[in-house]
């Protein structure tokens, strides 16, 4: 669609002898939360790194706001990244700065705003994630859920049209998890941004997502709305949603026959 903020077309990426992603095509329209689900090692985080231009695809294109990410030079990439927010799995807060300065960091680096205005903006962003009262906390004083909320405030500091979340629910207690999930949905709707949520937490990802892509072995195994995915009879989807040991994703990693490894001659 012409109004898609981000379009991935037949993206392929791999390291020397290992293919990570193969022929991945996706669309991310503004105002929608899109979940990327899949098992560990299915290429979800790699996909975020490709979108952010930290890696370059070996084939295919990633087009953000009409520009091919893979063809941008360093200055072009930096200009593009100012229009992207990224929430890392454990927040990736700067440990030498306090909460306030972490959120102020992108504003101070990329704008010439006077300090009183930066202060007001930071407090508003922190208020949006419910942590205005923790503005002067050291990062070491934050719980996992609080750290992720601060990182979220930092990710939205420059009001980017695209926000990426890398495993935002990993390791959180139920209350923090529900808080972060609600924040992702509410911020998405309030700011009318495109949100990409990488997760293997199906229940919460489905709760907030408008659309879901299931990645398996570097390919899109299935995609659709959360309801259509729940009703799917596709064995890839069923194995992932039901958490079955048996299915398209084999329990045993590819190996030579056991008898051969043990030196048993039959």
């Amino acid at each position, binding site marked *: 669609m012409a109004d898609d903020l981000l379009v991935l077309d037949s993206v392929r990426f791999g390291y020397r002898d290992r293919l990570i992603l193969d022929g991945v095509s996706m669309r991310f329209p503004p105002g929608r939360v899109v979940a990327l689900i899949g098992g560990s090692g299915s290429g979800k985080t790699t996909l975020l790194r490709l979108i952010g231009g930290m890696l370059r695809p070996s084939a295919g294109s990633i087009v953000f706001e009409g520009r091919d990410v893979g063809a941008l030079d360093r200055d072009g990439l930096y200009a593009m990244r100012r229009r992207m927010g990224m929430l*890392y*799995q*454990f927040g990736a807060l*700067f440990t030498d700065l306090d909460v306030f300065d972490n959120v102020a960091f992108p504003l101070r680096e990329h704008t010439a705003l006077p300090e009183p205005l930066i202060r007001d903006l930071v407090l508003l962003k922190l208020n949006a994630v419910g942590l205005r009262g923790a503005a002067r906390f050291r990062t070491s004083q934050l719980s996992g859920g609080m750290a992720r909320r601060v990182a979220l405030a930092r990710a939205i500091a420059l009001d980017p049209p695209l926000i990426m979340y890398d495993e935002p629910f990993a390791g959180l207690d139920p209350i923090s998890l529900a808080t972060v999930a609600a924040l992702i949905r509410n911020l998405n709707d309030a700011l009318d941004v495109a949100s990409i949520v990488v997760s293997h937490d199906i229940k919460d990802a489905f709760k907030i997502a408008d659309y879901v892509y299931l990645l398996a072995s570097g390919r899109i195994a299935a995609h659709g709305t959360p309801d259509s995915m729940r009703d799917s009879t596709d064995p890839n989807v069923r194995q992932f949603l039901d958490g079955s040991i048996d299915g398209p994703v084999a329990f045993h990693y590819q190996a030579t026959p056991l008898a051969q490894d043990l030196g048993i001659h039959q």
Partner: protein
Amino acid sequence: MISALSAPFRWLLDRLALVGYGTRFFLRLCGLGIAAFRRPRLVIDQIHFVGNYSLSIILVSGLLIGFVLGLQGYYTLRRYGSEEALGLLVTLSLVRELGPVVTALLFAGRAGTSLTAEVGLMKAGEQIDAMEMMAVDPVARVLAPRFMAALICMPLLAGLFSAMGVLGGYIVGVEMIGVDAGAFWSQMQGGVDWIEDVGNGVVKSIVFGFTVAFVALFVGYEAQPTPEGVAHATTTTVVVASLAVLGLDFILTALMFSST
């Protein structure tokens, strides 16, 4: 068979690539280091972190080495009846060699490891990646101010080390053993040349500052983002920086003092 034969060449090519990459990184760091002064606050914070926290170990070590120099120098000079030259011996030893070299070795152990671990842990905690994703160059924002701070601190610390060493030599030689104080200072004053001795010592300390700071930051930045990777990088910094300082010291000494 073919892979076994090609392994040494691959190793050589990898090392050459590393040297090339390291050289480009060094030049980039120098360029961005000058630009870092546009935000002096970042450099000043790092001078406090890198320099101030190294101060105590440098001062104490300088004093103790001065004690030893005073004692050993006195024992040796006494054989030739030249105890009055103790001040000159202690001072020349310090400003020409021990000041820059030992300060650089201590600096590598105290500040260098700290820089490597800090940058390595930032990488392991995805802070470097996060900065890149925020369109902020981590080499300019994190590494360059630390590089400049180390360059500024090294000659100052080496100067303080030498001053404390002279004081240590004076305490042992004059106050405890009884060498004439006037001879101690006058021999020193007459025999030490500002350009030849002190100036060359300062040049050495600046070169060592470049070396230690670059090794510490480069190794930290290229560390594997794991606990083992950071631990390995920290050790590598001490080993590589120390050997580089000692090797460079030999070359610089040969160049600077061959005619004296």
